[in-house]
Structure formats: structure tokens, C-alpha cells
């Protein structure tokens, strides 16, 4: 960012150097705020926490209302009293979410490092707040901003749409006219705001330079500096001939999970949003620990799934161990020169596997709870013996 600002001050396009890949709006934002950079990042973190707090507060009310409705409609089996969430246990969840975000070592690290990921997180948090409050216009605007910053929040369109449809009580049937009407409205809002922001950037800098620098960079992954993601090692080892193919495969991997998840989780769009956020931060081309901090902030919301989580202890140990081994192996590779990139990538792989298993554990626990809610806690087979729920 500093280089981009310097180039801008000289009158040259900030994208003519190879290291600046942020959007023009960020350039102009920091043009005025570069003196107070530390304060800016602290304030963005606080804003994110506040947005998450308000969002989860509202979400709790929605969940409770929905639960009451389903109980009255007799959709739940008779013996699931202990699975129902009570307001008392849900009272402290918003505070826990805000604290989880603020006190997370990953958040502290990215604040100290002054990573622009903090700004991405703030925009996504505001997007979530707007969606949960039900305002389609604001939600579309913030989603457009988030997509404009880094391409991947595009996939959050689906859960936001599902949530807003649910809020408007529009059933999700492909033949329903109101469904398509609402969808096109939301999509139009989103695309128009995206167009406006992109054109604004064009007029700010008087060139379309920023599109290949920002989006081309995210999609084609030219820079292979080691990070905690999965891309850099693969592409460092690969022949030029195949790199286009594998870039496409890796990028499709990020967007691919949206449709199956949308089909499975269409009743639970906020959980879908959480899983989608996690998938983005694991599979995106340049992940940082700030992305991880954002989705981890949501974990207290699903604390009622605790009894169904099976591997949470092992996974948290794996994640902590990997986070501690990252700097050790980085030191051994870069400074001591005794190790090589394989050591560091092994830890990256383990860390990402730990994250993937964490998300799938939560996913499975969520589905199990839904199943128990509708079919009762004590499952019996047709012949009366006790059954067990197994994932095949």
C-alpha cells in the first residue's frame, strides 16, 4: 500500500509496479489515513466486532422465533427437549462472538502486521449485519464492496439471497414467480452497485489498470511467496505447460461448494454463510490468518452443537500445534537454512487439513442435530433395537 501511495504521489499508476494489488478505493482511503495507520486498523477491528455483535444479537432473535414456530407446528419429535436452545444460554453468545474475534491471537497478529485483511473483514461483517437485519439494499452494497476488494465473497451471494428470501417468507421453489422476482431484484442491486464501484475506481485513476492487477492477480496467482495457503507450493513445482489448467482447477475448487451447500442448507442460510466463509478462507489463493479469525469468531454461535462434535479436541490441538510450528519451520527454512520449503509446506498442509476437518465436523454435527430434532433423540430401527447415526 505504501508503494502504491508513493507511485500515486508521483503521478504514475500505482499498478505499474508489481507489488501493489489493492483496489483504488483503498489507495484513496489510505491517502488520507496513512499517518494514523495503527489507529485505523484498531478501529476496523473494533468495528468488525461491533458489527458481529449486533448481527448475532438479531440472529438469535430470529432463531428463537423460528424455533417457537416449529414447536407450535409440532415439527419436532417429542423427546428433544434438551436440544432446544433456550434464551438463557443464548444470552451471552453475541458477547462471546465479539470477544472471540477481538481476543483471537490471529486477529491480534493481523492488526499488528497492519494487514489490509482487517478491512476486508470489516466489510464482510457489515455485509452480514445488513443481511441479518433484512435490508437487501445495504446487503447488496456491502457484498459488492467485499467482492470488489477480493473476488471470493461473490460466493456469499447465495446464502445472503437464501436468508433474505426466508425473511420475506418467499418459498424457494424454482417455479415460483415471487422467488425469481426477488432474486432478480437482489442480483440487480448487487450488480449495479458493483458496476458503480468499479466505474468509480476507473474515474479515480482514469484507467482500467486496476482490473488485471487486482482481479487478474487473484485469479491467475502469479506471485508464489509462501503463505499459509495451498497454492504456492503446487505452482512452484509445476511446469508452465500445466499451470493454466491447475489454476482453473484450484479456483473452481473455491466456488464449487456453493451449489451443493445451497441445496443441502437452504433452510439454514446463516450456517451456510459460516461454512462458505470458512471455505473461502481455506481455499482462496492468498489466505491470511485474518480470514481465519473471521470465521472462527462465529464458533460460539454454534456452541449448542458441542455435544455432537466428535473430534474437536484433536482438531484444536492440531491447529494450535501447527500455528506454533509455523514460525519455527519458517525460521529453520529461511534463516537457519537447514530446512527447505517441504518442511514449511507440511505444516501448511496439516493446518489446512485441520481447518477442513473442523468445518466438516461442525457441518456433520449441525446435520445430526437437525436429524435428531425431527426424528427424536433415541433412534430405533424398524425392529425396535437401538440405532446409531453414521455418516456414510
Amino acid at each position: 500500500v505504501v508503494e502504491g501511495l508513493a507511485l500515486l504521489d508521483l503521478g504514475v499508476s500505482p499498478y505499474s509496479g508489481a507489488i501493489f494489488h489493492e483496489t483504488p478505493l483503498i489507495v484513496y482511503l489510505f491517502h488520507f489515513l496513512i499517518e494514523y495507520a495503527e489507529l485505523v486498523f484498531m478501529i476496523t477491528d473494533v468495528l468488525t466486532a461491533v458489527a458481529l455483535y449486533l448481527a448475532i444479537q438479531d440472529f438469535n432473535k430470529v432463531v428463537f422465533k423460528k424455533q417457537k414456530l416449529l414447536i407450535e407446528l409440532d415439527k419436532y419429535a417429542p423427546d428433544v427437549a434438551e436440544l432446544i436452545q433456550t434464551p438463557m444460554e443464548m444470552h451471552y453468545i453475541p458477547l462471546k462472538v465479539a470477544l472471540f474475534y477481538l481476543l483471537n491471537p490471529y486477529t491480534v497478529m493481523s492488526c499488528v502486521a497492519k494487514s489490509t485483511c482487517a478491512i476486508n473483514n470489516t466489510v464482510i461483517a457489515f455485509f452480514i449485519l445488513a443481511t441479518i437485519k433484512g435490508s437487501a439494499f445495504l446487503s447488496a452494497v456491502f457484498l459488492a464492496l467485499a467482492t470488489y476488494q477480493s473476488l471470493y465473497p461473490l460466493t456469499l451471494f447465495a446464502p445472503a439471497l437464501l436468508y433474505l428470501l426466508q425473511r420475506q417468507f418467499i418459498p424457494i421453489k424454482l417455479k415460483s414467480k415471487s422467488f425469481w422476482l426477488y432474486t432478480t431484484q437482489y442480483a440487480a442491486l448487487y450488480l449495479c452497485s458493483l458496476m458503480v464501484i468499479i466505474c468509480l475506481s476507473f474515474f479515480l485513476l482514469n484507467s482500467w489498470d486496476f482490473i488485471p492487477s487486482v482481479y487478474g492477480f487473484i485469479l491467475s496467482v502469479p506471485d508464489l511467496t509462501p503463505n499459509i495457503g495451498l497454492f504456492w507450493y503446487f505452482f512452484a513445482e509445476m511446469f508452465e505447460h500445466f499451470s493454466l489448467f491447475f489454476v482453473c482447477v484450484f479456483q473452481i475448487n473455491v466456488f464449487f461448494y456453493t451449489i451443493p451447500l445451497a441445496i443441502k442448507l437452504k433452510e439454514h442460510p446463516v450456517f451456510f454463510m459460516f461454512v462458505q466463509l470458512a471455505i473461502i478462507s481455506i481455499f482462496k489463493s492468498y489466505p491470511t490468518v485474518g480470514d481465519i479469525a473471521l470465521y472462527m469468531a462465529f464458533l460460539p454461535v454454534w456452541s449448542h452443537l458441542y455435544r455432537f462434535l466428535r473430534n474437536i479436541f484433536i482438531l484444536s490441538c492440531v491447529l494450535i500445534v501447527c500455528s506454533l510450528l509455523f514460525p519455527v519451520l519458517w525460521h529453520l527454512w529461511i534463516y537457519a537454512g537447514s530446512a527447505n520449503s517441504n518442511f514449511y509446506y507440511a505444516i501448511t498442509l496439516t493446518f489446512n487439513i485441520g481447518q477442513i476437518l473442523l468445518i466438516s465436523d461442525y457441518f456433520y454435527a449441525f446435520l445430526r442435530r437437525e436429524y435428531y430434532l425431527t426424528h427424536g433423540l433415541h433412534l430405533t430401527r424398524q425392529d425396535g433395537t437401538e440405532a446409531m447415526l453414521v455418516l456414510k
Partner: protein
Amino acid sequence: MGLLSDPHCRRALSRLIVRLNTPLCALSYVLGLGWFLALAFPPLAPRTYMSENAMGSTMVEEQFPFGQRALAYAREFAGHKKKVGGMPVAWLEQTLWSLGLEVHRQPFARTLPFPDEARERYMVRGTNVYGILRAPRAASTEALVLSVPCSDGPHNNQAVGLMLALASYFRGQIYWAKDIIFLVNEHDLLGMEAWLEAYHDVNVTEVQSSGTLGRAGAIQAAISLELSSDVVTSFDVAVEGLNGQLPNLDLLNLFHAFCQKNGLLCTIQGKLQRSDWDSLPAYAHSLQTMLLMVLAQASGRPRGDHGLFLRYRIEAITLRGINSFRQYKYDMTTVGRTLEGMFRKLNNLLERLHQSYFFYLLPSLSRFVSIGLYMPAFGFLILVLILKISFLGGRWFAGSREEPRPGLLVLVPPVLICHAAGLALYFLPVLGQHVATQHFPVSEAEAVVLTVIAIYVAGMALPHNTHRVLAGAGSERGWMALKLLALLTLALQLGCLALLNFSLGFLLAATMVPAAAAVQPNGPKVPLAAVLVLATPAVTLLLGILVERELVEAPAGLAEGWQLFLGAVGEGLLQHHLYGSFLFPPRDGHTDRPTDPPLAWLLLWNVLFWK
């Protein structure tokens, strides 16, 4: 996901872990130790081989003829050194200049954090002198270093003489592609560190120096030479560097190859290789060699001046000429030819040495144990901790259904207090040395060492105090949670340590793991307390010193061992402040790596006295 998601399999596995926990732990520990001891068995360790292509064959024709000249230079140097009473800077500069090298001097000064009793100095001032032989047809982008420490007294004079003779010989050759720097450093490690920092323009420690005037490009390799006699019977090589870092194995292979070519006897850890390999005495011999290397690496102290080069990614070894009572002696010409051969081979390097292993153990000079072979031993030791953690974790989570959880806040006081003790152990000794000398009749160095030991012992009194602070004291699940946390911390720290300095990690694991796994407040208190005290890192250091003296065949009695122990603690602290080694200080100042076994040990002590 089969194992993790299939409930039948999971239940069977957890039942197995719970029922057979102690036998499995014991088996794993024995396997780990047994694996480590088996590594020294010669047929199991592969032979060393040259990995770097550029150093493949030793087909150079060495023609170094100036053996007598080396001795003459050595005698002159000794005379001038005695006259000046230190390092004869002017004479060295003039001699190097007359040989046709580009001469530079580097004065440096360093105030030690506390006076060093072993060598009685507080403020060290010295000068490094070095001459650069510029390669005749190359662009001065790479360099090799031959460094000779200038020690007090009659030591190391022949090394300077040989260096000067080699310089005069090398100056006449046209095949050098890299510059060669001939360095004479004063006050051994301090001077070396000052030179390296000035050369690379960094400021890692607080040495004040005038800054290096002449540079010769990136240093590819360095050899440090120590010779104190006119003839040698064998050459000893030292590889361990600062914080247990080792040079590339290829450099050692190069040395071995050239010693064999010139017929020089070479030893490692002072021990000669045996020709029979499948007998028990041979196994004991190679086990001794390997244990000596493990102890040296674990101490984190560089065994020669080369140790400081490794931090800058420069491969370096130290060669020591030994004059023992053997009959066959080699003169300076042979030694010079070996060194000439080594330098000519290093001259051929196209890139830094990276092909061979950086992590290895040496049971003898021609056999090595790579990281892939020795890590499973450590893995088995950590497996004990993992088994115990899963066992405790299972019991803790199972117990959460029956009784209400006391809350994790109960754990906070012990953890905070243990951390505070660790920080005190790190900061207080050096800061408080002046206060201590005012009130007690001890010198500063003694004050520092005794403060360290005092804080360590004071930490053992902690459980009796933290008890009163805790609300959940005495509850069954409270101590399980604390032990879980302690085991996790221990496993994490041992893992990080083993990656950075395998020997230290393995030694600490071997001593602390059985005590850590066995500790619980319900069992017999006194034996468990005794076991835990024996497992503490300080006692490990004491035992390590005693074992090392045994292995070097100069056994030390208990009193002498205690003195050595005190000296080692003092040296360790001093080295930490001077070079950034991390033997015992809880946190390394340069990165945030948690290397604090005493912390985990204190937590376990708290668990033992929970009730």
C-alpha cells in the same frame, strides 16, 4: 474420514487407549529409547557419501611445499605475541601485506552483561586482522574463509604460521575462482561474532566495532584451524555450532575424503574409528561417540569458532591438530596439502552446499544417521505424551457429563504464576546482580548463577502458595485439566525444541516424559516428587555434565561435577546474552518460540501437589 467418523471404530480405539494406557506408554518409551540406542549400531547407519556434484572426486594434485616456512612464521608469531602481550596486530598486518594480500583490521569492544569468572574479564577489547586474496580472474562475488583464533599463551601459534604459509602459496596460483579471506580473530568467539556482524552489516548482539572495511562477496564456506604443535598425529573435526546447528554433511565428507587421500588420521569427538563393526566393544565405541555429539549439540554451545558462521548460512567446520603419543607423526607439509586440497575443491562449488543433510548424528566419521532415521525415536517419546493426553482428555470429557465443570478459570492462577516464575528466571539474575553483590559477599558472576538456582528452587515452593488462591482446589477434574494443559505445553515445547535442536529436545524428552506421564496427586507423594525432581532440566544438565566427563574418560567426582554445573549455568547465561543461544532462558529474544521446559515442569509440580 473412516477412522474419525465411524463410531464403532472410534469406540474400540478409545477403549484400547483407556484400558492399556500404562503398558502402551511404557512400551512406547522403551521403544523410543531403544531406537535411539540402536542408531549407534554401525551396520544400521548408512555410510557417508559426497552429495554435491561439484565436489565429487578428489582428483586434485596438491603441491604445497612450504611446511618449513609455516614453522618459521609460527615461531616469529610466537615471539611477537609474547613481546606485545596480546595479538601482534602490526606484525600480522605487515606480513599479510608483504604476501600480497589486501589487509584490513577491525577493532571491536564488548561489555559483558556480568563479569566472566572463567576468563576474568568484564570489558573485552580486541582487534581482528584479515587479509583478502582476490581471485585473479573472478568478480569477487564469492569468498572462502580460513580463520585462525589467536588465543592467549603458547596455543595456536602453528595455526597462524600455517595460515601465512598457505596464503603465500595460494597467492601464486591462478585457478582461484573465489576470493579467500585469511582471518585472525582475537578473543575467539567474541572476535568471530564481531567480524561476522560487521561483514554482514547486521547488529544481532551489542558488539561495538568500527565496521568492516573490506568485503569479498558472499562467503560460501569457512574452515577454522587450531594447531598448537609442530607435528600432528591426528586431526580432530568439530561440527556442532551455536544452538545445535550443524554444517552441511558434505563439508565433513570433504574433510574425511582428503584426510584419507593424504593418509592423515582423522577423528571425531577425539575418538578414532574402529575397523571391526560387529562386535560389542565397537558398538560401545560408536555409542560413546554419538552420545558425545548429542551432549555437545544439546548444550547449544559452539565447539569451535566455526559455530557462529552457521547462523549466517555459511557452512563451516573447525579442524584441530592433535599431538598425542602415537608413533607416526605428520608434518606441516601434509597438513598444508590437505587444506590446500580442501580449498581447491571448495573453489569448485557452483552454489552453496545444500545437497547433503543438515540434520544428522555421527556415530563415527564414516557413518551418519539422518533425520529420517532418528526422528522416530523422538516420535515414540512424544507418543507417550499423546497417549496420556488422549487418556486424560477422554476421562475429562467423560467426567463432564457427571459433575459440573469447575470452569477453566481455576487453571488461570497456576499458569500465570508459573509464567511469572519463568520470566523472573529470565530477567532477574542479570538485572539483580548488583543488588545481590551489595547484600551478599559474592562476586557478580556467582551472584547471577546463585540467583538462577534460587529462583528455580523457589518455584518448587509455589504449589503450597497457589493452593490458597484457588477456589477449585482439591477437585478431581481440576488437576486433570491442569495436567492436560501441562502435558500439552510440554509436548508442544519439546516438539519445537526437537525441530530446532534435536539433541536438546530428545534429552529433555527422555528425562521429562516418564515423570510427566506418571505424575498425579493421588499416588505415593514422596517417590513421585523425587522422580519429578530428578527430571527437572537443571538436574538433567548436571547429569549430562557427569556423563560427558565419563565418556571423555576423565570422570569427575560429585563435587567437581557441581562446580562444573555452576560454571555451565553461568556460561550458558553469558552465551545467551552474547550470542543468542537458548540453553535455558525461557524465551529466545529474537523470535517468539516457546522454549520453556521449566514452565511445563513447574505446572507438573503443581499437579503433584494439587491436594
